[in-house]
């Protein structure tokens, strides 16, 4: 049954009910009049009679009509509101979850069906993009392996003139950078397609953080940056050791890379309401408010000058955030330009 038929049906029912109410009221009033007339009692003048009919019969009918109309609109729009709420929850990640359907065959049910079909098509497109990235990065690896290998083979030749050697060595550096980018892309493409299995195990997060602190001190040495471990509470989490170390190292590396010479890095690990909170701050130039929402985007560079001086692969933070989310945690960046940038990682504490 279509919504129009259903609404018209209900509307007719309300009108009939109102009419019935008027009929009953009028009949009652007229009978009373007839009764009064028969027994010689005084009869209301027509004006008074009309007033009585309006207030005692008409008004309740109007109220009934209004209430019915209100109820009718509400029940007609409720499925729309429900559909809106469900649709609002849809992101790239849960496109396959269908919108709830009433299956009564009305227009809204059809709309939900069409939206579900659209989501399936969108999901297919996303999957095609993921697959493309995955295949492309695989395809790139073979020629990269050959180029790196052959360049290295040439470099091993002792008789190579120094100028030529320098040129090839620099070419090899760039090839390796390209290899790192392809590696990062492969990992993210696999993560998008849900193909990366994490090896979850109970871990002492504080031990990983202490290790990370040692690495950060080493990384900070050339820029004479002071690294401080302000707090390191004993906390256990369930996680993938390699991935979490990769995440922590990435944050430490960024804290040093984007810091000023003789700056400061402060590391904290605390337990807050059942959540492990790791934070690492640096005293670098910071990130502008316009750039901040994009720092986790792939290949995003806040400051174009950085791409020339720092040889990261532009995917570090995207990977870091993926690792955090895969652990049911979150990674947040805050920055006061010119003063401090703070990266905060929150992970659920292991129970039991």
């Amino acid at each position: 049954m279509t919504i129009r038929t259903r609404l018209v049906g209900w509307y007719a029912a309300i009108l009939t009910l109102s009419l019935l109410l008027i009929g009953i009221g009028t009949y009652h009033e007229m009978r009373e009049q007839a009764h009064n007339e028969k027994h010689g009692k005084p009869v209301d003048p027509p004006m008074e009679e009309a007033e009585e009919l309006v207030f005692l019969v008409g008004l309740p009918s109007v109220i009934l009509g209004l209430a019915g109309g209100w109820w009718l609109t509400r029940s007609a729009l409720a499925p729309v509101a429900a559909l809106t709420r469900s649709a609002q929850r849809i992101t790239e990640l849960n496109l396959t979850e269908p919108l709830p359907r009433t299956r009564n065959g009305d227009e809204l049910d059809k709309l939900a069906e069409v939206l579900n079909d659209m989501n399936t098509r969108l999901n297919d497109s996303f999957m095609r993009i993921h697959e493309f990235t995955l295949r492309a990065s695989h395809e790139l690896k073979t020629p990269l392996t050959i180029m790196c290998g052959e360049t290295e083979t040439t470099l091993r030749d002792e008789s190579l003139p120094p100028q030529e050697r320098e040129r090839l060595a620099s070419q090899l550096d760039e090839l390796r950078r390209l290899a790192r980018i392809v590696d990062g892309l492969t990992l993210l493409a696999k993560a998008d397609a849900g193909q990366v299995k994490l090896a979850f195990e109970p871990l002492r997060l504080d031990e990983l953080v202490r290790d990370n602190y040692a690495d950060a001190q080493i990384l900070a040495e050339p820029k004479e940056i002071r690294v401080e471990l302000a707090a390191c509470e004993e906390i256990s989490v369930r996680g993938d050791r390699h991935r979490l170390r990769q995440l922590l190292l990435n944050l430490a590396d960024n804290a040093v890379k984007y810091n000023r010479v003789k700056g400061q890095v402060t590391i904290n690990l605390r337990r807050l309401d059942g959540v492990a909170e790791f934070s690492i701050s640096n005293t670098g130039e910071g990130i502008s408010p316009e750039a901040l929402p994009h720092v986790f985007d792939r290949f995003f560079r806040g400051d174009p000058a950085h791409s020339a001086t720092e040889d990261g692969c532009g995917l570090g933070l995207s990977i870091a955030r993926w690792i955090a989310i895969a652990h049911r945690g979150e990674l947040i960046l805050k920055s006061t330009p010119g003063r401090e940038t703070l990266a905060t990682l929150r992970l659920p504490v292991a129970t039991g």
Partner: protein
Amino acid sequence: MRVLVVEDEKKTASFICKALRDEGFAVDVCHNGDDALAAVRTTPFDVLVLDIMLPGRDGLSVLGQLRGRKNTTPVLLLSARGNVNERVEGLNAGADDYLPKPFELTELIARVRALTRRSGESKSTVLSLGDLTLDTVTHRAQRGSTEIELTAREYRLLEFLMRSAGRPCGRMMILEKVWDYHFDPGTNLVDVYVRRLREKIDANFEPKLLHTVRGSGYMLKGRP
């Protein structure tokens, strides 16, 4: 020392062979898994370099067959997919080492060498190179009669370099052995650490022992 390289990509196979031959290995090549299994049946090899993605029977299946036949030849797996899961899968299937593509030749050679040494590794608890000694029990390092203070990580780095003395060690291998990192962090962690170690063991002494190998890594080497 005889190495079998199983790699279907001709150019890749060619530069791997050249590099290993230059290092003094005798090298045979197969381009698919069945040929490799046949070759292993007739010839004893010291190491197998086995690509995972092969036409027909893939590398992991070759490895399974090999181990099923109680063949214990050390195997170095190569893979273009390169992720931690695959590394674990390969090692569980009986591989001795795993190298993701694209790799550095130095890494490949160092790993093949490490596999040929595996059985005959020195059991001595004191490693020495020139006048540098490292006690693997007490973790004490000395250069001549001077005691050298090392952090735990520096000790592991020095031990690894001393065990591979005379051969270049790639950054990836150092990260793997000293840090247990199985990914390329894209940082200069290794370089800074090596610099610190160099200050401790080389700065006030002659001859210098810790050398940088342009483009590939580091090497501990005494006087030739």
